């Protein structure tokens, strides 16, 4: 499942972009250190394969529902974690651009949730220790299923945390976790099973490419270092940025809300709020009157409801209508301009 642009705040999106860009740069550097000119076409075509494989919905026995492959763990097994991350990044970028899955702002979150966590946490910490150097079929199957389950559990947990820290939705932590984790447990098991079938199939047909062969082994200790590094970096960056964003109460948002027309500038002092306070709010622990406030101190939100509202005031509504009408006029005008200039441009 993809994190969406509509639910992410700029500070969270920026933190996740920084973490993802860091992990991608490290992976790119690792690949440059071990040049292999067969890898360029292999990565490209495997990316296209994962993309195409996601189009296959297979029936899940006994449930009547269907699932599809995500591919992070499969790519890490076949290519090693650093190449796999870059392939996942490219797949998710194309999905965001052409299929509007997720979005460009949330792309950092999505590459982290589905790529970094699968390639640099689930693969080196779960798959590699269980599978070992020369895994039997059963060991390989167990390792693959467990790695997929862990990857998807971490991924959906990351979505929950990112959504709550962004504070664009008022759903509470408990409800959200209950909604997300069990369904992703099921998805993870299915992902694990289909990945296992694929890995075993490849092992029988092309033993030289299966785990236990060249690249997967070379990259293991290295991947573990990067995985640890990526996790630490994320925590530090996210923590620092949230602190920065909240020490000036919700930074940009708050100051702009004050500057904007129609919102009276109130004289409250700025209350510095740490990350714990924000998590507390996001989880719905404080009273629910908080939910209406847009980064302003809580006490103003409760009594200020008539003035906060942009929807009710007549001029607001009438203005909205006028804006839409202007939009229509703009479109019609531009279209007319286009039509009059069209003969000049080649068909």
């Amino acid at each position, binding site marked *: 499942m993809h994190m*969406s*642009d*509509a*639910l992410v705040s700029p500070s969270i999106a920026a933190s996740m972009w920084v973490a993802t860009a860091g992990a991608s740069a490290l992976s*790119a550097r690792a*690949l440059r250190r071990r040049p292999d*000119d*067969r890898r*360029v076409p*292999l990565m*490209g*075509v495997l*990316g*296209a*394969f994962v*993309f195409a*494989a996601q*189009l*296959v919905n297979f*029936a899940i*026995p006994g449930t009547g529902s269907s699932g599809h492959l995500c591919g992070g763990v499969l790519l890490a097994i076949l290519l090693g974690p650093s190449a796999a991350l870059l392939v996942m*990044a*490219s*797949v998710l*970028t*194309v999905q965001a651009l*052409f299929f*509007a*899955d997720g*979005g460009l*702002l949330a792309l950092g979150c999505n590459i982290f949730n589905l790529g970094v966590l699968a390639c640099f946490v689930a693969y080196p910490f779960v798959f590699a220790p269980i599978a070992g150097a020369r895994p039997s079929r059963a060991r390989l199957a167990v390792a693959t299923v467990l790695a997929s389950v862990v990857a998807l559990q971490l991924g959906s947990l990351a979505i929950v945390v990112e959504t709550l820290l962004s504070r*664009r939705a008022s*759903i509470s932590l408990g409800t959200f976790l209950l909604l997300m984790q069990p369904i992703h447990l099921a998805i993870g098991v299915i992902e694990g099973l289909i990945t296992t*079938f*694929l890995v075993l*199939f*490849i092992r029988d047909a092309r033993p030289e490419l299966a785990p236990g062969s060249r690249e997967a082994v070379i990259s293991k200790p290295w991947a573990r270092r990067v995985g640890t590094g990526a996790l630490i970096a994320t925590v530090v960056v996210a923590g620092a940025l949230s602190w920065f964003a909240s020490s000036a109460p919700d930074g940009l948002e708050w100051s*702009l809300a004050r500057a*904007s*027309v129609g919102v009276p500038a109130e004289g409250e002092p700025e209350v510095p709020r740490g990350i714990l306070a924000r998590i507390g709010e996001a989880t719905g622990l404080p009273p*629910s*009157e908080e939910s*209406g406030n847009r980064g302003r101190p809580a006490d103003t939100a409760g009594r200020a*409801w*008539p003035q*906060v509202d*942009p929807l*009710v005031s007549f*001029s*607001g509504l*009438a*203005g*909205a209508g*006028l*804006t*839409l009408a202007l*939009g229509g006029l*703009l*479109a019609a005008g531009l279209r007319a301009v286009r039509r009059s200039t069209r003969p000049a441009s*080649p068909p």
Partner: protein
Amino acid sequence: MTRADGITAALSHLGRFDELAGANTPIARVDPRAKLVTTAAFLVTVASYGRLEVIALLPLGAYPLVFLVLGNVPLGPIAWRMALVSPFAVLVGAFEPVLDRQPLGSLGPLVVTAGGASFASILLRFALSVSAALLLVATTGLDAAAAALAWFRVPRVLVVQLLFLYRYLFVLSEEVARSLRAHALRSPHHPSPRIRVAGSMLGQVLLRTLERAQRIHVAMSCRGFDGEVRLRRPLQARPSDIAFVACWCAYFVLCRVSNLPRLLGTAVFGVAG
């Protein structure tokens, strides 16, 4: 329609985007770097609004609107994509009216709650950011976008990966569609393959994929490939491109610091909010 037909339809849709990007329109002529920067600024602006803003977000619709009209992009494929996309935002947003019943005011007989405004805001943000991303690629094309990414110092291996993926996307998706069609013809009572069948079916495709990668590598080596992919696409920024970025960014700031629809309403109808 079988699943295979669905994939073929999705592919022809994807191919449409390429044709659109090749058209010679005022928006297609803008430097890809300028469009990338402006779109990023647009997305950040949209995301920076508070969770209850609905009306103040409306003027930002001008950005996708201008791309749509000046880029000569048909509304159909964009609207179709937006209707189909991942239901995540809508799902989370749908909880809002239930969770947050604090009244904000009334709209005639209708009481507007904070949750309702929040849901409307999530849907509007979703429409704005999704349409901006789709229109960016429909008026730029992936090749030009990749050249812009390389200019912004995105690691070369990632840019090349993106181009390779896009090149073989069509080939492999068609291969998967053929496998699915073959499956559908042989087992008409099971529209989607069971997991074990899907495993070996995808396994076959994966094997062919790996063989294809080998053939491509051999072909590339024959043409003098030495491990480094060279991208040659000269990018030239004109003064109009700089003006494009500057004007849009100024407009986004204006939208963000002032509630334009409210100002407009006050100015025209003379009623203070």
